């Protein structure tokens, strides 16, 4: 296979863009799990909701209105879910949580069908980002570059908040030992709530930025769920490092697998996941020990 350097650069950028999208989704899920031991299978549905809110808002006030308001709306849905369901399911075992959120997938899927119908919606790329950018000797769509930059910016912001601020220290303490943290006077319950809302908002944001690239369909949440779960299980639950490492591994294996070994591409990532689980049953960078 003789491809020039530009081709590989292009693939690397595509892989990076996929990784960043997955990172936005998986970071919320993984920190929610690490902090609350709560498995939220409906995280993908929140991503789909984000895309739908963005599509509706974009029709009213343009792309940027959707970009800023849709994550807030999704966080609002998160508040509702938290107060109605998740608070009560906190103490249940993982299976009950998996099932409740599996039921929630059904409910949210059909609700989006009722409100927005089955037809695929499309959002236009905003005018500001519609062109192509000259980068490393190739032309790359500005919008995809925007996703990469956004993902890296959010990673940097989260790394700063989690690593350098007081609330970050409190979250890390909660992930490490929530009983001890609450003995030390940290309101762990409120911390859970904040983290859950931020996680939902990030899932919504991922939906918003993905909407112009993919078409907005009711089952987009189901399609993204499995890659997100693979990312957090490979990376290890609960850690920022795990989420970014898992996303990069997934993005690059998937993209380069599709180029180098198209027949094996889809099996490759699952085989990798199985290998990780056999060698390190708790993932590469788990939050605890």
């Amino acid at each position, binding site marked *: 296979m003789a491809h020039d350097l530009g081709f590989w650069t292009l693939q690397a950028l595509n892989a990076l863009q996929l990784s960043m999208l997955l990172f936005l989704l998986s970071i919320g899920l993984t920190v929610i799990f690490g902090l609350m031991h709560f498995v939220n299978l409906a995280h993908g549905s929140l991503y789909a909701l984000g895309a739908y809110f963005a599509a509706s808002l974009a029709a009213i006030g343009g792309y940027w209105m959707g970009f800023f308001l849709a994550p807030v709306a999704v966080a609002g849905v998160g508040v509702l879910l938290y107060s109605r*369901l998740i608070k009560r399911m906190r103490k*249940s075992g993982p299976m009950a949580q998996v099932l409740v959120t599996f039921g929630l997938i*059904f*409910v949210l899927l059909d609700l989006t069908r009722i409100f927005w119908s089955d037809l695929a919606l499309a959002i236009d790329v905003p005018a500001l980002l519609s062109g192509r950018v000259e980068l490393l000797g190739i032309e790359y769509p500005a919008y995809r570059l925007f996703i990469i930059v956004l993902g890296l910016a959010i990673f940097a912001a989260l790394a700063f908040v989690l690593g350098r601020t007081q609330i970050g220290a409190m979250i890390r303490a909660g992930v490490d030992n929530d009983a001890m943290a609450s003995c030390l006077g940290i309101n762990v319950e409120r911390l859970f709530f904040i983290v859950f809302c931020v996680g939902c908002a990030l899932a919504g944001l991922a939906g918003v930025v993905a909407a112009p690239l993919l078409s907005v369909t009711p089952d987009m949440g189901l399609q993204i769920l*499995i890659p997100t779960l693979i990312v957090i*299980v490979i990376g290890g639950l609960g850690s920022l490092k795990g989420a970014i490492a898992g996303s990069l591994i997934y993005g690059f294996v998937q993209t380069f697998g599709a180029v180098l070994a198209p027949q094996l591409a*889809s099996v490759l990532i699952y085989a990798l996941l*199985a290998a990780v689980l056999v060698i390190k049953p708790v993932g590469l960078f788990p939050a605890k020990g």
Partner: protein
Amino acid sequence: MFRHNALRCTVLVLLAAAALFQALTAGYFGLEILTEILILAILVLALDIAAGFGGMVSLCHGALMGVGAYAYAILSAKAGLAPPVAMAAAIVLTGSAAWIIGAICSRSHGIYFIMATLAFGQMAYSYVFEAPVFGGDDGLGGISRLDLSFIGVDLNDSRSFALFCLATLGAVYGASVLILRSGLGRSLAGVMHNEQRMRALGLTVWRVKADVFGLSGLIAGLAGALAAQHIMYISPGLLSWTVSGEALVVVILGGLGTLVGPLVGAAAFVLLKHELSALTPHWHLVVGVILIAVVMSRANGIFGWIEARWDGRAERRAVKAARKQKTKEVLSDA
């Protein structure tokens, strides 16, 4: 260990009678629904053995069923094996695959076990979806049913096929009870309650888990081979993770670890699906709400709820009898 009590026996007899009545009297559509229930029931029995009695909550049983279905289709239609041989081979193949999965996942617990099994299921799904041998997205058609003409049964008739599935389900139920009562089943109960202690007692825990998962896989493969013969056409959708999720939903709605409950759940689920999809295209919404309500109520499914009330009543009666006895004693003492 699994035991039959009066309630379980009653429900079993009622279910069997209803299924038999339906199989003998229903028209074509009723028979199709009955067969669907019976095949789903075989699958959820397999899942209940692993999840309810072994704590191995698997999200790959749908995929295992799909492996059984595809193996049967390929072996009988493409490799030209006789249907009984193809069916036996498909079941053994699925069981071996499940044994390997069980062995690999035996070290994982809780959510990691769920994720690991999900990964294996998805691996099978995408392989079947991509490989040209399996017909990809289009699936495979032209699958023949077993030939039982030597005992005068024509399985291409839907009534005979429904009765055949009912008989198979009966046999699978009997086998499941035997498995759970065997030494292996008792070791499994021990592993589920306290894995550390069983290990300290010298049990090879991973072997127990892998063996049970393999047996469960055999049953799932059987369900798959039957499903392929029922619809005579298979598509990769059979292996999708939502099928495994639905199987888990059925087990939970019925009552985890009761063996009878999942049978009730299978019947309820298929009937609900058909009734609701006739009324509204959004039947998933209703099923989702019911699922959330059942799990939040903390009852162990429909059957578990009935059983808890039944036990509660029996207990109250015992307490009342004891109290009466006591009053009598007090009176006679006086």
